[in-house]
């Protein structure tokens, strides 16, 4: 098992890659001009990366973020000068996307890079994450990452399909509490526009309990302090490892450490019993 430590990026998460790529693409295309106002639906990390780059390049940023996210995310966004519009906890990121789309339509001069539908998101991983993985681990057999916007998996997936088609691309999708799935009807469901199912070999749903347990194991056994989405990814990766072991096959499994645990300390889920930690994350967007 090999961990790719994406928490070491400038704002502390893998989203720095996608954000830089989307911003520079929009600048090249002339969509993003000096002094522009950016708008983005985000559950945290994309917003934080965008807030930092906006600060440095003189853009204004408005983030639409679900209200059921950890206070550290609000603190970091505010620190970098972003304005936050909270969307309702019910419906999770779906609701943030919906609200942002309404605001974008009402304010045509604002620029929404829109991570869920922007090819430059996946392209960042095609250009950087994918080649880095193969350069550092030529024996790679499986790549496991989180499924949110799907950018990491689509970009790395496409790169590996072209260069090493035998490598399995595995998605780990966080399974939240019921609040997040509280849609009014099934037609309100959401599949990111950049998602292409054919890039994946398999897709696993991982609940909070397994994600917390694996996050703690990573801390206890390897000294890696990660956020809970990484725990979910590790859980799927260990499932793959177990399957390979049972089949008597050797495997080199690379998984993504998306971010550090700092932003989630206030949840209290790093200590105490698993039951208490699971209760603490219930209703939260923990990934």
């Amino acid at each position: 098992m090999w961990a790719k430590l994406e928490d070491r990026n400038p704002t502390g998460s893998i989203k720095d890659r996608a954000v830089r790529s989307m911003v520079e693409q929009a600048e090249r295309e002339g969509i993003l001009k000096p002094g522009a106002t950016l708008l983005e639906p985000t559950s945290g990390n994309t917003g934080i990366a965008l807030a930092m780059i906006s600060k440095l390049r003189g853009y204004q940023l408005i983030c639409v973020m679900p209200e059921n996210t950890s206070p550290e995310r609000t603190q970091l966004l505010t620190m970098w000068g972003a304005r936050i519009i909270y969307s309702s906890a019910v419906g999770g990121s779906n609701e943030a996307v919906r609200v942002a789309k309404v605001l974008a339509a009402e304010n045509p001069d604002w620029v929404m890079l829109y991570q869920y539908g922007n090819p430059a998101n996946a392209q960042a991983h095609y250009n950087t994450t994918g080649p880095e993985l193969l350069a550092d681990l030529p024996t790679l057999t499986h790549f496991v990452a989180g499924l949110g916007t799907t950018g990491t998996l689509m970009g790395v997936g496409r790169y590996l399909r072209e260069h090493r088609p035998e490598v399995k691309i595995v998605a780990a999708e966080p399974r939240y509490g019921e609040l997040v799935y509280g849609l009014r009807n099934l037609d309100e469901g959401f599949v990111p526009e950049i998602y292409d199912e054919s890039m994946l070999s398999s897709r696993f749903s991982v609940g909070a309990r397994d994600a917390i347990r694996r996050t703690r194991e990573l801390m206890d056994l390897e000294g890696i302090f990660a956020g809970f989405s990484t725990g979910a990814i590790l859980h799927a990766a260990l499932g793959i490892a177990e399957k390979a072991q049972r089949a008597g096959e050797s495997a080199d499994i690379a998984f993504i450490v998306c971010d550090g645990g700092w932003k989630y300390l206030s949840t209290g889920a790093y200590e105490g019993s698993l039951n208490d930690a699971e209760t603490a994350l219930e209703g939260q967007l923990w990934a």
Partner: protein
Amino acid sequence: MSVEVRVPTILRPLTGGEKVVTANGETLAAVVADLDGTYPGISDRLLDDSGLRRFVNIYVNDEDVRFLAGLQTLVADQDAITILPAVAGG
């Protein structure tokens, strides 16, 4: 062949409010048909002419059936099936 099926909030009006129900069948298709016998209308909410509806995800033991054999995915006794609407992450 009895399996446990977790039903999302949005479909619970069809199961009399039940969160977890049991069903029988050797494939996912058979399980859905069996569910529809007990809770009429549920199949329509999950499937359309092309198979699984776009915004419906079904997992057998936490694995997305679209990457297994879809509706023909084999189901074993005691397997756990989870139905979830597709939602945004990130």
